[in-house]
């Protein structure tokens, strides 16, 4: 196991993860203001991970009315550019037309909802560099992660009954290469590096945008999930939903309560019930009908 890919968290495993080495948290920056929607990242991902399958591709219904490749991510299509024609009402009353393009893929959250919801031990892991990865050989196909994910990213494959998502090219990272989509991005709107370095670049870009007609430009790094391994620079920073991004994503409280409250209390109750029977038995013994005592039983 290459060193920087040690584990920081493992799904449904009470024992702590093995990662003791510290690795810088890597991240991907998506500058939607310089994305030209060319879809090189979509097919670079398919090409590197050998995901393309002609017959499945034909099944995917074409998303009509826009240049978007397909309506949603699938198990064979791990990142998708979402196109949105939006007319912005400027403060001075004029209208400015925007053709918003945003790359949608796993956000590699700092506190992944999928990993928290996953019941299968070892199916979802988080490496010490922050990348969240699915281990299909442990996945039992229960799709809890789909509910746990605040961004609705994991997809179950009909064929293998396992879930798949962007892995930020862990195999390339393990060998010191950058993810395939980021290397391919023609305009450099995708950048790879350590999180804090990318946050600096994103901040600088946001400052520049503020002077170029995007007053509300902002970085999208939602604290609700402890910050994400994928940060966006949004031109219309106050309306992330225009880019298909949830406004304030966080690990659903239902999942946290379910995992942190319900499960332990449930287990306690069950063990309690077991103890209850033993105590009752010791305390009260058996409730035998008068005629059935041992002496009576001989003749039955």
């Amino acid at each position, binding site marked *: 196991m290459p060193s920087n890919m040690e584990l920081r968290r493992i799904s449904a495993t009470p024992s702590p993860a093995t990662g003791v080495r510290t690795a810088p948290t890597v991240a991907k920056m998506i500058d939607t203001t310089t994305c030209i929607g060319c879809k090189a990242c979509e097919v670079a991902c398919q090409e590197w991970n050998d995901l393309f399958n002609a017959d499945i591709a034909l099944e995917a219904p074409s998303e009509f009315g826009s240049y978007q490749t397909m309506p949603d991510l699938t198990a064979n299509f791990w990142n998708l550019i979402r196109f949105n024609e939006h007319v912005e009402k400027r403060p001075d009353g004029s209208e400015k037309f925007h053709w918003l393009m945003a790359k949608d893929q796993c956000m590699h959250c700092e506190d992944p909802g999928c990993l928290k919801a996953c019941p299968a031990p070892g199916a979802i892991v988080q490496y010490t560099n922050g990348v969240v990865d699915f281990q299909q050989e442990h996945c039992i196909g229960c799709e809890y992660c789909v509910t746990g994910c605040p961004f609705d990213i994991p997809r179950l494959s009909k064929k293998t009954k396992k879930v798949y998502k962007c892995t930020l090219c862990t195999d390339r990272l393990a*060998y010191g290469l950058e993810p395939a989509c980021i290397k*391919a991005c023609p305009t450099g709107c995708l950048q790879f590096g350590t999180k804090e370095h990318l946050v600096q670049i994103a901040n600088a870009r946001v400052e520049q945008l503020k002077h170029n007609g995007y007053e509300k430009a902002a970085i999208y790094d939602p604290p609700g999930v402890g910050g994400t391994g994928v940060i966006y620079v949004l031109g219309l920073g106050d309306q992330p939903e225009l880019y298909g991004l949830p406004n304030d994503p966080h690990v659903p409280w239902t999942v946290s309560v379910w995992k942190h409250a319900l499960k332990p209390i449930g287990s306690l109750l069950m063990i309690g019930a077991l103890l209850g029977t033993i105590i009752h038995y010791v305390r009260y013994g058996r409730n035998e009908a008068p005629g059935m005592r041992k002496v009576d039983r001989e003749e039955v």
Partner: protein
Amino acid sequence: MAVSRREFLKISTAGGVGIVAFGFDLAPAYAVVRELKIERTTETRSICPYCAVSCGVIIHTLGDKSKNVTGTTVVHVEGDPDHPVNRGTLCPKGITLKHDIVNNTRLTKPMYRASGSDHWEEKSWDWMIDTIAQRMKKTRDDTFIEKNAAGQTVNQCPGMAIVGGCTDNNEVNYLLVKWLRSLGVLYTDNQARL
């Protein structure tokens, strides 16, 4: 044997426990990162054939060029990080070049359609070259104009047109222009004009 209820109970609980014991605890094998698929491939530098940015690409082929590795074994195409223009990036067409090289609809056999026929026939290369050369010679000889109406030597062969070459390299284009001009062909063009 008549199993009294006590025995029945013992067997079932013991069995149950047995199951648990029998179900040995498969500790989850820790995360295994996928093998890097281009670790052992042979890398060759080439240029993407599509637009005129001419991005540098690295084409990975399986095998170490030993003799018995034949056939198109391109496994992956990636941008050439050293190329000053694309610096490793590629557009969607470039990044999927493998599908252009290894493609089940690539033409692999010379095909001939006879005059008036409704289907292709497979022919040998030699037959094709002979027949094409004869057609070209016949058309050149039939339509060749040595002197025009005003008596000027023009050496034109208007009956033939040779077009093409924008996806061909310079050297082939040079051979083509040298050949077609020596045949006297004037009807020539390529995508540069379209």
